């Protein structure tokens, strides 16, 4: 396997992100293996990986996710290999972290610093991990970056409030939350506290909402720009361990067990596998949970609301309905108010198409006004969703539809969503399997 090179990928918008993620994956895998078994070859390769990326001219700060993920990778390697490096090498690595990662991230006016979305979580997370690695040698830099993060990360964490529905969909929940979990885990291991992050309203609940948004056949309710699924969710193992919620580990573990039975030759990073080694750090024996996840999840009050109803908690043949309400003007959102997914007897009968790849290749498809090119794509507008289209019109991006009356019980649940009067949708499940 060749060492990383500074090669930008893309069609119209170029990125170093694939290289950054590959390095992060290698650092975590080699590093955890080396820390557990100390085979010299793993440590040697890890050192070679870092020496390669420190020779790059930059870590592509124009698209700062690329820099943030690379900074996290190099910082973790610097910390874990501390006792293996001589003083000159430590100084060279530290200087590289500062010059290529922290200095490019020091502009307080960068748009992501106070962003309301996952960019904030990923970029501050990378910078926090970078500063924690070099804190005793660069205390002023570390103090400044941590203060800035404590000020601005809550802006992004507000997205989870109040009920734990991440407006940008499960894929971006997974991306943003993975880095927030990394941030918390790094703060706790380095400083002994979480900076207050875990107390953010809705943050803890979001792990349950995401677990419950996966239907009995496996896929999640894929609203917004969403792919196949969140795959092997290390953050759920972290959450299960942190909050002693065995039911989250029990729900997440089968994906890991399947992987262990038949591991692929190469990790599939579209499923977040660069964090796979972290799942081992957060591993805890999966035991019978004290309580199962409830069958009904009504998450309301945020930018996006979800009704997730099923007849039996972990029965693969259960009936499952999920549908979406709330606002439309959210990053990575679609015109999908009222869109639903439906499964019963082990068959998915109604799914969401999820993301449209071409949207990512264009610069004009991110605006959220009514005239945006984003709404030219079938997968992004209401014609391509399981919802009513009224009078042949696109849904109004400024529109909002809140969940109405809901009820959840042991054998019957329902939720009502009012769209534009006089149209109303009513979906329900019952224990008889006749939603």
């Amino acid at each position, binding site marked *: 396997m060749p060492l990383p090179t500074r090669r930008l990928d893309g069609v119209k918008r170029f990125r170093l992100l694939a290289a950054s993620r590959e390095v992060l994956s290698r650092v975590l895998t080699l*590093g*955890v293996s080396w*820390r*557990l078994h100390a085979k010299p070859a793993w440590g040697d390769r890890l050192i070679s990986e870092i020496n390669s990326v420190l020779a790059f001219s930059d870590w592509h700060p124009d698209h700062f996710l690329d820099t943030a993920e690379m900074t996290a990778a190099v*910082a*973790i390697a610097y*910390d*874990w290999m*501390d*006792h293996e490096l001589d003083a000159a090498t430590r100084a060279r690595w530290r200087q590289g972290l500062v010059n290529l990662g922290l200095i490019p991230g020091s502009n307080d006016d960068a748009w992501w610093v106070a962003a309301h979305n996952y960019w904030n979580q990923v970029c501050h997370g990378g910078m926090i*991990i970078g500063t*924690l*690695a070099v*804190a*005793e040698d660069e*205390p002023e830099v*570390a*103090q400044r970056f*941590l*203060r*800035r993060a*404590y*000020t601005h990360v*809550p802006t992004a964490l507000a997205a989870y409030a109040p009920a734990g529905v991440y407006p940008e969909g499960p894929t971006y929940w997974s991306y943003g939350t993975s880095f927030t979990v*990394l941030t918390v*885990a*790094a703060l*706790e*291991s*380095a*400083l*002994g*506290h*979480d*900076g*207050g*992050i*875990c*107390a953010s309203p809705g943050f803890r609940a979001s792990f349950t909402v995401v677990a419950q948004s996966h239907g009995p056949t496996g896929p999640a309710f894929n609203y917004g720009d969403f792919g196949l699924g969140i795959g092997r969710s290390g953050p759920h193992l972290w959450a*299960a*361990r*942190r*909050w*002693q919620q*065995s039911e989250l580990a029990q729900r997440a573990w089968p994906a*890991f*067990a399947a*992987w*262990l039975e038949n*591991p692929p030759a190469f990790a599939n990073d579209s499923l977040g596998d660069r964090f796979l080694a*972290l*799942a*081992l*750090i957060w*591993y*805890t*024996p*999966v*035991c019978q949970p004290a309580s199962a996840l409830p069958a009904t999840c009504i998450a309301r009050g945020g930018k996006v609301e979800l009704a997730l109803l099923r007849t039996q908690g972990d029965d693969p043949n259960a009936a499952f309905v999920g549908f979406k309400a709330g606002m439309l003007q959210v990053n990575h959102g679609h015109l999908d108010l009222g869109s639903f997914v439906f499964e019963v007897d082990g068959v998915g009968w109604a799914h969401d198409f999820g993301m449209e790849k071409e949207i990512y290749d264009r610069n004009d498809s991110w605006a959220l006004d009514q005239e945006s090119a984003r709404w030219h794509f079938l997968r992004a507008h209401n014609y391509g969703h399981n919802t009513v289209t009224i009078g042949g019109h696109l849904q109004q991006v400024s529109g909002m539809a809140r969940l109405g009356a809901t009820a959840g019980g042991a054998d019957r649940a329902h939720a009502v969503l009012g769209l534009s009067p006089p149209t109303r949708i009513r979906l329900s499940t019952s224990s008889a399997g006749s939603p």
Partner: protein
Amino acid sequence: MSTAPVPSVPSPRAAPGVDVLAGLRAHPRLLLTPERVTELQALAGGDPQCAAFIAA
């Protein structure tokens, strides 16, 4: 679950005069502490799933 949850501390910690690096531990301090390494090595001895995970 064997580990007691760490309580979330109140924010903000960005107040002037607060040493936000108080309590900084020695290397290696990020994510995988030496104590956790010892725990995982012990777990792998008696937990087939953990052992399989490490082997993978």
